């Protein structure tokens, strides 16, 4: 009802939402940092491989070179340039993280919404199924699955997706439970919408923000898990990721050899990307929960009304709008 005053012409509605989100990100130093880091890595992942060319064949250079202008991170035991390898690894690691989280989001949201909306026996069975995956130690399950399925890129993505969805399903289910009781769901049912349609058209749009926020955190987890799996030797053998570089450096004893440029860059890269996604996830929290936003903004707002300056009147309303700095100026003058 109060929204009429802010009613912008409808076409601007969505753009407005984007602008709002950007304002939150920009207003928060941490999330801005996250966006900057992530943008840098995405640029490297997308454009980098074109700039540095393909990964060297084995023995293209001398093995175990130290960093130099020709080889920024030196070379590995088979003589590959590690800078080039790291650039390619960025692409693979981000790709695995993104695709695996997307898959796990689809599974998680699907199961969460179905369980929450359908309720009863469906809920019980789907949630026991979720619990089953939830209680298995992620790493052990992932290791076993990866070993069984075989070490290809696709399989690693599948493994990560299968282990990452249960948490999402639980979160989405609980949100769905509250959405289900809202009146517009009853209304949709009254119009003759089927359960599937209600889940898709009424529930999904309402939990979508949560799905998105969850995705950012899941991507970080997925990248981390991929690195771990690769480091443990069950990662994709058909491509280089940060984890695989770490694995090879470890196997070659890079630490004792003092070849820091072999294992520090991929390690730092993993930390930075995971950090970036976590920071952005926090910003999403704020975007989705405007209460959080307003509280912060209010606390940071130095231009609040100064009661003592208002000439002793406790409440004075000068214009029908919310007091702006302008209206206070007018009162002062």
């Amino acid at each position, binding site marked *: *009802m109060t*929204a*009429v005053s*802010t*009613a*912008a*012409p*409808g*076409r601007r*509605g969505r753009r407005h939402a984007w602008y709002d989100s950007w304002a939150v990100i920009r207003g928060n130093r941490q999330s801005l940092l996250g966006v900057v880091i992530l943008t840098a890595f995405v640029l490297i992942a997308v454009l980098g491989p074109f700039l540095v060319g393909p990964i060297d064949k084995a023995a293209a250079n001398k093995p175990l070179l130290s960093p130099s202008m020709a080889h920024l991170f030196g070379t590995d035991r088979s003589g590959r340039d590690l800078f080039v390898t790291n650039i390619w690894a960025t692409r693979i690691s981000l790709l695995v993280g993104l695709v695996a989280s997307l898959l796990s989001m689809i599974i998680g949201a699907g199961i969460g919404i179905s369980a929450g909306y359908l309720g009863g026996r469906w809920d019980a069975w789907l949630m026991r199924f979720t619990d089953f995956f939830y209680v298995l130690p992620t790493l052990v399950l992932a290791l076993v699955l990866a070993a069984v399925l075989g070490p290809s890129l696709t399989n690693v993505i599948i493994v990560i997706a299968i282990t990452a969805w249960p948490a999402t399903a639980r979160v989405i289910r609980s949100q769905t439970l509250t959405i289900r009781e*809202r*009146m*517009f769901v*009853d*209304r*949709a*049912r*009254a*119009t*003759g*919408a*089927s359960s599937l*349609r209600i889940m898709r*058209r*009424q529930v999904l*749009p*309402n939990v*979508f923000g949560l799905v998105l926020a969850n995705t950012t955190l899941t991507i970080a987890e997925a990248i981390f898990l991929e690195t771990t799996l690769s480091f443990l030797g069950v990662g994709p053998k058909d491509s280089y990721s940060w984890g695989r570089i770490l694995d090879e450096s470890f196997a070659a004893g890079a630490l004792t050899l003092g070849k820091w440029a072999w294992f520090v860059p991929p390690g730092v890269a993993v930390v930075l990307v995971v950090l970036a996604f976590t920071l952005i996830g926090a910003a999403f929290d704020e975007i989705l929960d405007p209460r959080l936003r307003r509280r912060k903004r209010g606390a940071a707002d130095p231009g609040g009304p100064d009661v003592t300056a208002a000439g002793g009147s406790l409440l004075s309303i000068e214009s029908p709008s919310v007091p702006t700095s302008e209206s206070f100026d007018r009162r002062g003058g």
Partner: protein
Amino acid sequence: MEVRDLVVEFTMGDGRPARAVDGISFEVDAGEAVGLVGESGCGKTTTALAITRLLPDNGRIASGSIWFDGEELSALDPDAFRRRRWTDVSIIFQGAMNALNPVRRVGDQVAEPMRIHEPTLTQAAALARVADLFEMVGISPERRREYPHQFSGGMRQRVMIAMALACRPRLVIGDEPTTALDVMVQAQILELMERLRRDLGLAIILITHDLSVVAETCDRAVVMYAGQLAETGSVSQLHDRPLHPYSVRLLGSVPDIRGARILPEGIPGQPPSPDAPVPGCRFHPRCDHAMSMCVTDAPGERAFGAGHRVACHAVTDEGRLRRPSELPLLPSAALMATAAATGADVPPADTPVLAAAADPLDDDADRDPRVTR
């Protein structure tokens, strides 16, 4: 449409059944507006939910039937009924402002029933019809791309009406469509519904506790009390010659704009809870016509004149409500009758004394059986 001996039961938390609607019958002719009147918690909304099969999980139609155009709606299997929803009977919800999905454009939401029931409809045709509907309910069609929060309460109500008309139903149930709106907007909405009824030949069931709303917009009214029919008849019959003491009291609860500036009388006490039914006539603890017979025997419905039916022992066979002084009153009723006659305060009764019908903002929600779930 016809409702025959409808009984709706809710299973309470302890497993006992509670009858929220107990054997109600009424019919609605094509193009007719019927008001369903009564205090909060007397089964109006439950009746509407039963007709549209939206009862919560713990509620069910225990007996009785609902007929639409010669077909028994209550006997259709769920899938067949789903296909009939909205095309036969649509509903404007109580507090319809919350019945819009906040994250979807209103136009898409209004178009949704069409997409469900007419899968062959093209995007362009659906858009054109949404534009028509918006025009019909007095919203500029460009606003269909906006979100619900950009609309005021009255506008959202109009959107809901547009949605209710999306599949050209023959009957619209308005469940307190004007509750929580200010008086000016209420009048606009009612006028709109009245106009649409004339133009489209809609039948309307209007659920309300506001008798003035019924008097303005309806042809006939059904007065419900505690899940049962108290009285039904044309609006003029009910207004000029109410027979049931409850109807008399309800009418007395409305302040008269031309009369003396006195507070309306109200009805002392509250309607009984459906899980603790009152024996005999359900109104007797609050009735100033109550006799010993009212405590033991439930009154049957008797018909007087064209469509005028009433269930009360105090009404003579000629169709006249006897004065309290002509009746062998119960002590409590006698007290109430004297109080009413002398204008004294209503004496404390066994039930809490409240001017129950006088609060227009009182809402069915607090007595909604769903709350017990």
